[in-house]
């Protein structure tokens, strides 16, 4: 399992307006494209200087394809990254704070200690 790669996906999508829309509309296609093209990009290097070893597990791919923020939390993805991106994708479909409250309520079965987010 790679919490780092989950975080890298959330981070790189969240900061790019086009990718936010693409992930909202086509999660499976975006995750497949991102893993093939972006997962091994070193963010402050030229494109040729690629990492050779980063990939998702099946469970991680499934969680990302399913927009499954609860499973991402349980996997130890950074909660700030997940929340920020998911608000960007889905707040627009709801009334004021409705999405944020529902997002928390979907995790009400979770208790301390929360999953470790250290990478």
């Amino acid at each position: 399992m790679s919490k780092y790669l989950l975080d890298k996906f959330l981070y790189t999508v969240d900061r790019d307006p086009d990718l936010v829309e693409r992930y909202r509309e086509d999660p499976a296609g975006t995750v497949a494209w991102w893993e093939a093209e972006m997962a091994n990009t070193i963010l402050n290097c030229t494109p040729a200087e690629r990492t050779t070893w980063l990939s998702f597990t099946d469970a991680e791919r499934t969680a990302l394809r399913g927009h499954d923020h609860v499973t991402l939390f349980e996997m130890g993805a950074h909660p700030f990254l997940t929340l920020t991106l998911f608000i960007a994708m889905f707040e627009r479909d709801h009334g004021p704070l409705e999405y944020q409250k529902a997002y928390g309520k979907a995790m009400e079965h979770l208790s301390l200690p929360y999953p470790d987010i250290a990478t």
Partner: protein
Amino acid sequence: MAEIAAVIASTHHPFYYRASTSTGADRPPFADEWVAKIERFRETLTRAEPDVLVMVGSDHFHQLWLDNMPQFLVGKAPFFDGNWYNEEREFGLPRMTLRGQEDLAAHILRDGLDRDFDLAFSNELRIDHSITCPIITLRPQADLPIVPIYTNIFAPPLPQPRRFVALGRAIRQMVESWESDQRVAIIGTGHLSLELGGPRQFGEHGPDPEFDRKAVEWIASGDIDGCLAEVSLESLHAPGNATHGFMDFMLMMGVAGEGQKADHVDSFDLFHTMEAYFTWYPNGVPGEGAGRERDGRVSIAARSASEERSESGGEQ
């Protein structure tokens, strides 16, 4: 030597800008009271007449990322652009550009290394809402040069709470040993109890009002020892999963000093999180006799940097 004009610790609520500028049906019912509290808080900086702002905050995965993550970082650049696309998107924060104070930044970096704080640096730093929020609340004209200092409260492993306090004490000494006649305000922002992306987020109050009550008391009374006795990296998970941002308040307690009561204390119970605002005047309340001695103690600014260093011993 430079003089500390004010020490200020605050929460950095990214919704303040939108709440305070919205009108009509969009204006939340708590906005007017919030604005009134912020305007009183702003006056505590204005009356200190600072020339330079040292601003402590924490990057929220904007420029600093897990492939290259510093624990403590100083921005040294002639300018700092502020706010990011996702902060514009979620909070409606405006873009801004602030001037940098490179002489002070260089001094802090050199002096920090010499005080055993191996501070990272950035010569091209885009600051985020942890630093732009206090500009919006405390100095909206954004006319003063800054030295941004970022701490890692976000991406574990994190430094220990005592290390934040020690860095605060060191920053105080670094600023006071800067050979300049400038008046420096040291401003830092953090959180009280806070949950982000977990089951306790966006409640009627902050996730742990009892923690918030104790935290405000620790800060207002300068009770560093009491705070350190109860707060650990492990304990901070309990009040809310983003409560490690409280360590930036602990850093500011270090700047203000053990036992130093804040001259201005205010808080505001909001949904999701409690706001809290503190100002100390180490050299006396402006307008009530600059440089006067409070509580019978010697003004720290009048003492030499070497005395300060010898007193702080190996604690850093």
